[in-house]
């Protein structure tokens, strides 16, 4: 195992563990936040960066090839699709008359 592969392994571990960390925070946010819109904050943002991190980690592990390019393509697609999906769900919720949670009311 030479020096280059060790550096690559360190980067892979760093990015993938970062992805797992942000997946964890988004999941805890989904469970802990008080209402629908605040939960969307957790999933919409957390999942985008987590997927980006995990895909970068796997792409570095895979190296510069056709497969690596396809992984990059998935990352670009998620970057475009995840905010749009979040926006679509939140708009549907607002049109259906869901009331956003306020600080004053204490319902969980």
């Amino acid at each position, binding site marked *: 195992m030479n020096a280059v592969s060790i550096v690559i392994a360190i980067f892979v571990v760093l990015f993938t563990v970062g992805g797992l960390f942000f997946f964890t925070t988004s999941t805890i946010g989904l469970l802990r936040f008080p209402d629908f819109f605040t939960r969307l904050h957790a999933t919409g943002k957390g999942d985008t960066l987590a997927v980006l991190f995990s895909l970068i980690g796997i792409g570095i592990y895979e190296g510069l090839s056709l497969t690596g390019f396809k992984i990059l393509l998935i990352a670009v697609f998620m970057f*475009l*699709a995840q905010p*749009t999906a979040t*926006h*679509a769900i939140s*708009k549907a*919720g607002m049109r*259906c*008359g*869901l009331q956003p949670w306020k600080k004053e009311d204490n319902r969980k």
Partner: protein
Amino acid sequence: MIRKTDDIIIRTVARILVPFIQIYALYVIMHGHYSPGGGFQGGVILGASIILLLITHGLVETTKKISERAIAIFSSIGVFIYAGIGVLCLLLYGNFLDYSKLSVILNVTPAEARSMGILGVEIGVSFTVMAIMISIFISISTTEDHSKYDKEHY
């Protein structure tokens, strides 16, 4: 009746994504004998891209591109291609879908003939799957009146 959304964000993202999704679906169909996928999966993605167009641009604008009559024709053409290749093999003294017998017509070696025969069958399957998916979606969404849906279930 499927109305088009009044949301400009979803409409723009869909209109940018649809051509790429379709070329990806055709890639899945055409490379079915090297990688996973093939006729059925590619057909599903192709149908899903048209459904994305339907829910964002509405029924009227989509049927300008691919009319309901064309969808019905596509569904029967797909079955015709599939069965036609099978029967052609029968006529050449082989079994049903015995592609290697096609080498007499195509003027290539039996191995290449098998590859081409699989490709033809997959194209037929994908046509049928795409057409049936779109026609199911259209017939479900145009007959039911959505306004009767009560608000308690959200």
